[in-house]
């Protein structure tokens, strides 16, 4: 009787062990997804890097728009631009917006306090751009002008939507 009763105990312990390991892995995954890895411990350097990254996306959008508007751009330029947006957009939430780098904290910052007050919403907005950038890359690989134009507009809406809520441009 006692031998029989031990078996379920072992099974139960094994289940608990596996489950908690799983939980632990999940918890680490969660933490990694949410934790910030700022590009520098110096907020001024972070803001500088943020501006450079945003500018790089602007340059890329400009390049892509030249193709979409038929004003001298090439599909090759669209591919390069889309790759730049993909790369830059992935940095936004994890490493470009640590706390205390917004308006009132850093001179010339245009980052509204809503970013940190509504962090999950901000992360979502950034994730929307990552997805749109990936889709633009795929469209660029396909080389279909109509598909590129559609995805270009999607990326633009992601940029503008986030700027509407989270950026206050200096005048």
């Amino acid at each position, binding site marked *: 009787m006692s031998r029989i009763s031990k078996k379920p105990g072992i099974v139960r312990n094994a289940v608990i062990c596996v489950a908690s390991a799983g939980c632990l892995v999940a918890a680490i995954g969660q933490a990694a997804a949410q934790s910030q890895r700022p590009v520098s411990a110096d907020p001024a350097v972070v803001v500088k890097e943020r501006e450079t990254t*945003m500018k790089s*996306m*602007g*340059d*890329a*959008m*400009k*390049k892509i*728009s030249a193709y*979409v*508007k*038929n004003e001298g751009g090439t599909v090759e330029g669209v591919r390069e631009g889309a790759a730049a947006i993909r790369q830059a957009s992935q940095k936004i939430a994890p490493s470009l917006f640590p706390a205390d780098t917004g308006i009132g904290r850093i001179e010339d910052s245009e980052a509204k306090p809503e970013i940190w007050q509504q962090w999950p919403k901000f992360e979502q907005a950034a994730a929307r751009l990552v997805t749109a950038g990936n889709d633009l890359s795929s469209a660029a690989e396909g080389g279909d*002008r*109509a598909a590129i*134009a*559609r995805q*270009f*507009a*999607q990326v*633009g*809406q992601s*940029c*503008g*939507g*986030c*700027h*509407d*809520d*989270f*950026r*206050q*441009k*200096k*005048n």
Partner: protein
Amino acid sequence: MASWLLRLGVPLALAAGGAAPSLAQTAGEDPVKRGEYIFNAAGCLGCHTESKEAPRLAGGRALKTPFGTFYGPNITPDPDTGIGGWTDEDFIRALREGRSPDGTAYFPVFPYTSFTHLTDQDLRDLKAYLDAQPAVSKPNRPHDVSPPFGWRFLLPAWQALFLEDGGLPPEPGRDAQWERGRYLVQAAGHCGECHSPRNFLGAIDHDRMLAGSADGPEGKPVPNITSDPENGVGKWSPGEIAFLLEIGMMPDGDFVGGGMNEVVENSTSKLSAEDREAIAAYLLTVPPGG
């Protein structure tokens, strides 16, 4: 720039508003369809819908101003909480004179100082469109305005001082495209409501029309969009202005924010390419001011 969308034959999700290619006054036989175009040109959705998840046009959107917080009212055809049962004349008086059917004056946060210039036909079409939308029962939220600005009985005096009705005056030497652009900017689009400075009584400073505001909605600065080459859009090409209105991109590849992206999404992207070009042509003639 002729619309690149048309050249591509691509109805972008953004631009697929079903906008007729011609001016609202001549865009077909159906008043509801024509009214939809005016509705988009006037950007009514923004202030009259609380959020993307909320019932459309049932009101509740908060607009913070230096005078207090206003809440957009319900403009669905619901007879008790919306504008159901209004006659065309009631509607025209509201948009042109800033008065409700019972004679109460509206706060000028409702841009009747701009809408007063809308044509009779456009106002009737707009009402036909609103009448065709689903009724939603949702009571209006009272405005939260500090005295003396919250004293509604003072509003008729304000209107006597600052409401200039009677349509936009003709200007010699201007073509039809310029006039259309002015109508879209000054009357329907009410761009000057955010893009112009106001005096201490909240009236737009007409000498500095569209010259930007340090104190726009939410207390934030709004840019100068006059022909000023340094502070405004004077160095932009008409195509660059039209492209901003279509998808929100500025000439340097940056995208607008601060509420303007919403204007692009709800309003200017749904206009015809000709109308966006008309707006660009008009803005490039607006004197720098301020």
